[in-house]
C-alpha cells in the first residue's frame, strides 16, 4: 500500500488530459527489451573473455567449442541452480545471463505492434509528390496546359489574394461546409440516440436510414434541385444528407456496443435515466461518434465540391469550374490545394479532439 501511495504522487498534478504522457508510454512500450539487452551487452562486451578457469573439466576439442553457446547456457543453469559451486572470480550468474543473451540477440521474438513512429514521417510522402511535380514542370515533361508548375500556382495564389477572389470564395465555401457539417452531425447524432436507446426508435428510423445509406447522396441531387432550386438550401441539404449517414451509423454502432454489464452497474448504484445517458451511454458511444465524425468531414468536403461545381456562382468549386472554361490549370490547382489543405486541417482537428476525448484508451496507435 505504501508503494502505491508513493507511486501516485505525480498523478494528481497532471491536470490536463493524458495526451502529453502518451509519447512517453509509447516509447517505454516500444522497446523495453531491446534497450535493456543492448545496454548490458555493450557494458560487458569484449573485455570479458569466456572464463575458462572454472571449466577445466571440459575437454577443449573443436566440436565442443562449436557448442559453446549451448554449453554456456547449460553452465548458466547449473550456476543458477547451485550458486555455491561457483568458482570465486568467475562471472556472476547475471553477467553470464547477459552474455548468453547477446549471443542469442538476433532471434529475439518478432514484435507485432507497428513499433516506433518515424519522426516527421507523415510529411515524407507529400514532399516526394511535390518534388516529382516540380521536377516534371522544370524539365518540361509536364505541359503547363496539363498541369501548371508549382511556382506558377504560388504566384496565382498571390494574385487571387490580391484581387480578393480567394478570400471571398473561401469564405462562401467554409460557410456552406460549416452549416452542412453542424446540421448533419446534430441530426445524425439525435437519430442515432433515438434509434440506439429505444427499440421503437430503431424500428422506425433504422430502415429508412439504411436505405438512404445505400443511395449515394449525390444521386439525390436532381431531385433536390427540383424541390429546393439551386440556392443555398439545396447545397446545404446535400451536405447534410452526406454527413448524417456516417455519424448515424458509427454512433449507433458505438451505442449498441456498450457492455450491458455497465447498465447493471448503473442499476445497482441507482443511477437515474438522465445520469445513465450522460455518464454511461454518451461516453460509451463517443469513440463511435468521433469515428463517424471523421468520415462526416470527408463526406462534407466531397458534397461541397460537387454542389459548388453545379449551377453555382460562388465558392472554391465555382472558381475552379470557371477556371476550367478558361483553361487556367493554375487556378484549378489552387482550388485543389485549398480543398486538400482544408480537408487535412479539418481531419486533423477531429483527430485532435479524438485524442483528447479518448485519452482513457490505450491503443496500438498511441
Amino acid at each position: 500500500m505504501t508503494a502505491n501511495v508513493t507511486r501516485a504522487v505525480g498523478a494528481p498534478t497532471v491536470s490536463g488530459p493524458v495526451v502529453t504522457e502518451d509519447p512517453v508510454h509509447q516509447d517505454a512500450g516500444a522497446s523495453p527489451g531491446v534497450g535493456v539487452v543492448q545496454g548490458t551487452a555493450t557494458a560487458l562486451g569484449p573485455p570479458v573473455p569466456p572464463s575458462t578457469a572454472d571449466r577445466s573439466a571440459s575437454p577443449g576439442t573443436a566440436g565442443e567449442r562449436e557448442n559453446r553457446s549451448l554449453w554456456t547456457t547449460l553452465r548458466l543453469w547449473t550456476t543458477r541452480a547451485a550458486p555455491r559451486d561457483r568458482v570465486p572470480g568467475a562471472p556472476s550468474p547475471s553477467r553470464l545471463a547477459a552474455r548468453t543473451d547477446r549471443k542469442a540477440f538476433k532471434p529475439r521474438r518478432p514484435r507485432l505492434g507497428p513499433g516506433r513512429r518515424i519522426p516527421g514521417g507523415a510529411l515524407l510522402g507529400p514532399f516526394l509528390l511535390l518534388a516529382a511535380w516540380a521536377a516534371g514542370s522544370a524539365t518540361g515533361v509536364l505541359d503547363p496546359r496539363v498541369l501548371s508548375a508549382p511556382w506558377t500556382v504560388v504566384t496565382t495564389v498571390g494574385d487571387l489574394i490580391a484581387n480578393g477572389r480567394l478570400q471571398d470564395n473561401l469564405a462562401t465555401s467554409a460557410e456552406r461546409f460549416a452549416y452542412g457539417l453542424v446540421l448533419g452531425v446534430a441530426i445524425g447524432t439525435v437519430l442515432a440516440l433515438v434509434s440506439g436507446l429505444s427499440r421503437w426508435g430503431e424500428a422506425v428510423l433504422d430502415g429508412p436510414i439504411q436505405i438512404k445509406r445505400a443511395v449515394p447522396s449525390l444521386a439525390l441531387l436532381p431531385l433536390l434541385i427540383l424541390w429546393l432550386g439551386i440556392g443555398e438550401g439545396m447545397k446545404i441539404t446535400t451536405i447534410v444528407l452526406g454527413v448524417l449517414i456516417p455519424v448515424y451509423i458509427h454512433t449507433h454502432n458505438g451505442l449498441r456496443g456498450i457492455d450491458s454489464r455497465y447498465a447493471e452497474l448503473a442499476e445497482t448504484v441507482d443511477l437515474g435515466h438522465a445520469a445513465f445517458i450522460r455518464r454511461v451511454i454518451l461516453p460509451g458511444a463517443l469513440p463511435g461518434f468521433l469515428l463517424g465524425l471523421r468520415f462526416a468531414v470527408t463526406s462534407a468536403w466531397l458534397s461541397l465540391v460537387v454542389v459548388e461545381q453545379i449551377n453555382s456562382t460562388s465558392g472554391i468549386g465555382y472558381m475552379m469550374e470557371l477556371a476550367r472554361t478558361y483553361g487556367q490549370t493554375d487556378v484549378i490547382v489552387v482550388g485543389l490545394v485549398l480543398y486538400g489543405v482544408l480537408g487535412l486541417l479539418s481531419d486533423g482537428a477531429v483527430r485532435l479532439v479524438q485524442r483528447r476525448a479518448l485519452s482513457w484508451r490505450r491503443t496500438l496507435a498511441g
Partner: protein
Amino acid sequence: MATHPGGLTVDAPAVRIRDLDRSFGEHRVLDGLNLTLHKGEFVALLGRSGSGKSTLLRALAGLDYDVHGTGEINVPGKVSVVFQDSRLLPWQRILDNVLLGLKAPDARRRGLAALAEVGLAGRERAWPNELSGGEQQRVALARSLVREPELLLADEPFGALDALTRRRMHGLLRELYRRHRPAVLLVTHDVDEAIALADRVLILHKGHIAAEQAVDLDGERGPGDRDFARIRARLLAALGVGADDDKDGT
C-alpha cells in the same frame, strides 16, 4: 428494512428471505430457499458452480428481471454490490467511478476518504486502465463502501485475482468490514476464503441452504490453525468433496 414494522429494530435481521423460488424456464434454480442475515453479520455462501449462488445474489440486489419466481425478500434500503469484475467505467477517472450515482453534498470528500481507505489515496485522477487488477477491485470496494451500505453483496469479488493479491484483499475486506459493519453476503467457491472471512458459512445445494457452519475463530485465521482445518473438513464434507480433493472442485 423496507417492509419491517417500524419501532423496535434492535434485533431485526438485515436480510430475510422466505420461500424463494427462481427458475429459468423449466430449470428450477432456487427452490424454497430461506435465509436470514443479521445486521452487521459477515456470511459466506458456498456452493458448486451452477448451484444458483449468483441467482440468489441477483435476487437480493434486485437485478433479476429475466427470472421467474416467487417468494418474499426483505433487504435494507442501502445495498451495494461488488462484482467479480471491477466493472469500472473506463472513461471515468477513479474518483468519478467511486462517486458514480452518489448524491451527497460532501460526496467528493467521502470519495477521497474511501479511496484512502482502500490504499489508493492520490490515485483519484488515474484512469481505470492504468490500475492493476487488484487495484481496480479495490476501487470497486471503495465504490461500494462510499454509499455506506447496510448490506454488501459480493459475487466472487476476488475470483479473478492472483493468489497473493487475493490474500491482501482478504485482509482489506475484513478491515473495511470491521470499520463499517455492513451485513455482508460473500459468494465464493473457495472454502478457505469463506472460512478466512466470514462468521458464518452457508452452503447452497439443490436450490436451498443445505448446511450452515459457524466460524468461531478469533485472531489470525489461517489454514495452519487446527480449528480452521476442522471447519474446512466439515464444509468440504457438506459440499460432498473429500478433504483431499481439490478445493476448486467445489
